[in-house]
């Protein structure tokens, strides 16, 4: 509901209003619409003095989106080509409609429209009558196409930042609005849920619409050209209550021949990445050849070649153990280092290399042990035969039973060789324990994904083929509860929109789009559009286009 001065309200309540209005225009070359909207009053010294178009304007049609009137300009002051004041009706010219009462100071009047001319005004001079007329159409700030077409990318906002901060940033950076031009609360009570948040490749209007959507608000520019909002939640008291039908001139139920929305789907991304597990499977393998020459082996095992797969609950399965040889030579262990890899540890027992070294040394040392001989040996008898051919062969024949003492001769088993053989056996045993071991690591691979959640509000008892759906995608919604609220609010809003109503009442400049008007029979009407025709000396009738408010 628009603020109006108490004195003006008294006049309205008395129903003795003497209509007064003014149409002001500013040259866009000297001031911006932002400066005009930010100024404390239309005649503020901070902005240039406006041109008063009121004497030239007739047939004034006002709506919340558009102001149009006919210019009667016999002196061609505003002619688009030659007029001295043509800039006041040129492309981008800023116009305002101010309404009040003749008995009140202009300070107590209400600015009910602020907008700009887009393009050029139509201008016609009739040859036969010489009459010069121009039809001027001025559009509200909400119709600015630059707000709706240009694509923007905002800066990033961290988790916990209130959505209102982003909204104000967008308004200032991409829409050229000052803080004084924004009537939306600086904090919306909803925070960004994701770690890094940016709005990208959306128009500024889409950006602020999606931010306000989270709190069931809809952006709109009010009569003063300031950005404000319509609360889509209809559970609020009426801004105006008509106690009787005296001021109500018409009550109409217009024809509405369209299917209404009966199902609203709100889709949002869960703020927290959810872990998505894969099936338990082999994640990696490792093999090693080890033995006395290696005290310790560390085998890193990654879950994927690119080292990016995550896994949990990993265990090692021994396909072939390092102890599968003759001797158990070591121990095998496994530990998961991080979510991407683990390490297999193969520890060779310390005695193995020691034994190998000792055996080798012993083998060498044994080579230096002199062979010991004794005087006692087996006897050898030489038998000489002379065959008929005359050739002599000498044969040595061992006669075990005959033992004789022959110094310096006989058989021997050297002690050193026995010791060397024992050392060699030890070395060979250790070498035979060298082996290749093979391991596999199994576990549950996982990754993180955003869960796309959804809240649906739909009319109960609706058949599948009757569903008429509206989908809202908004990643600033953080929880199912928030999404539920939006879905139900939007469904009720859409259902209300199908029950359109039109009422005509005495003009009330305090009413704005989004206000609720209560009529005498108890029904409530949400204002979706306002319009009136302004004539001198006549209190206009305000046409309220709206819809019936549905209550719980």
């Amino acid at each position, binding site marked *: 509901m628009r603020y109006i001065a108490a004195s003006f309200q008294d006049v309205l309540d008395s129903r003795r209003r003497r209509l007064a209005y003014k149409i002001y225009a500013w040259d866009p070359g000297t001031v911006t619409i932002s400066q005009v909207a930010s100024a404390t009053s239309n005649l503020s010294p901070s902005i240039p003095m406006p041109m008063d178009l009121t004497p030239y304007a007739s047939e004034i049609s006002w709506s919340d989106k558009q102001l149009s009137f006919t210019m009667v300009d016999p002196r061609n002051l505003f002619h688009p080509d030659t007029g001295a004041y043509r800039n006041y009706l040129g492309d981008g010219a800023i116009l305002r409609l101010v309404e009040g009462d003749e008995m009140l100071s202009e300070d107590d009047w209400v600015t009910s429209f602020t907008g700009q001319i887009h393009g050029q005004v139509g201008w016609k001079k009739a040859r036969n009558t010489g009459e010069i007329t121009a039809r001027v159409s001025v559009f509200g700030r909400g119709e600015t196409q630059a707000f709706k077409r240009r694509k923007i990318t905002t800066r990033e906002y961290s988790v916990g930042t209130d959505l209102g901060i982003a909204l104000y940033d967008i308004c200032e950076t991409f829409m050229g609005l000052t803080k004084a031009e924004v009537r939306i609360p600086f904090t919306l009570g909803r925070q960004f849920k994701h770690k890094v948040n940016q709005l990208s490749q959306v128009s500024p209007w889409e950006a602020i619409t999606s931010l306000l959507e989270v709190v069931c608000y809809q952006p709109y520019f009010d009569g003063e050209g300031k950005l404000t909002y319509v609360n889509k939640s209809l559970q609020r008291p009426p801004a105006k209550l008509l106690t009787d039908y005296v001021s109500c001139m018409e009550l109409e139920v217009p024809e509405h021949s369209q299917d209404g929305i009966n199902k609203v789907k709100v889709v949002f991304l869960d703020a927290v990445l959810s872990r998505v597990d894969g099936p*338990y499977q082999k994640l990696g393998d490792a093999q090693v050849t080890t033995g006395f020459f290696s005290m310790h082996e560390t085998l890193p095992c990654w879950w994927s070649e690119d080292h990016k797969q995550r896994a949990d609950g990993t265990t090692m399965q021994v396909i072939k153990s390092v102890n599968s040889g003759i001797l158990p030579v070591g121990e095998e262990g496994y530990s998961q280092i991080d979510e991407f890899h683990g390490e297999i540890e193969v520890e060779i027992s310390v005695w193995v290399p020691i034994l190998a070294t000792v055996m080798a040394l012993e083998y060498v040392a044994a080579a230096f042990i002199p062979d010991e001989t004794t005087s006692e040996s087996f006897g050898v008898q030489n038998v000489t035969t002379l065959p008929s051919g005359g050739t002599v062969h000498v044969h040595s024949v061992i006669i075990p039973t005959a033992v004789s003492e022959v110094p310096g001769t006989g058989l021997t088993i050297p002690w050193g060789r026995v010791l060397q053989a024992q050392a060699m056996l030890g070395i060979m045993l250790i070498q035979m324990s060298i082996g290749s071991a093979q391991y596999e690591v199994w576990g549950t691979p996982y990754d993180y994904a955003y869960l796309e*959640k959804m*809240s649906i509000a739909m009319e109960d008892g609706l058949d599948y083929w009757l569903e008429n759906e509206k989908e809202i995608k908004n990643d600033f919604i953080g929880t199912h509860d928030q999404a*539920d609220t939006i879905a139900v609010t939007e469904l009720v809003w859409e259902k209300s929109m199908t029950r359109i109503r039109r009422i005509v009442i005495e003009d009330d400049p305090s009413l704005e789009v989004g206000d609720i008007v209560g009529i005498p029979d108890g029904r409530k009407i949400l204002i979706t559009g306002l319009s009136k025709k302004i004539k001198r000396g006549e209190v206009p009738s305000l046409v309220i286009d709206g819809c019936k408010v549905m209550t719980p």
Partner: protein
Amino acid sequence: MSIRKIIDWAIQDQKSEMKGNIASPFYQYQDTAGSWVWACDVDLGGGEENSVLRSVPVASNNRDVVYAEQGKGVSLSRMGSGKWAITGLSKTLNSTVRMTLVTFEDDVFQISSSRMVGNIFRPLSYGELGTLIAPYGYGVLPYGLQGKFDPDGNLIGIVES
């Protein structure tokens, strides 16, 4: 209904990308020309009773997708003919849907019921392996087996791997 709304719907209808969850093992699928392609069923979610798109082929340059497990998110692209193809893995996953039913009567609305729908895919825990798969108990099904659960945590079925 504004023209803008109608245009928005038309744009939405022409969308060329969708997200879904793998709802079956990958299998070889023979098209009408007799060619074999890898394909699987994809659950588009959204709380609909029948939201599974059958025999969605895998795009030629994405053969690695066939190693993805059931329940994983995939992105689908619309081909020129209106068919859909799996073009890769998705970072989003269709999840639960909360359905609120509202009754309207004259000027009054009332929330009549609210319930969660949708499926959750996750491995069966040790406890579930021992108790849910009665009367078999431990050992029959391997650890890591995926199960399909409703939003209340009730097991709907074992997912083929």
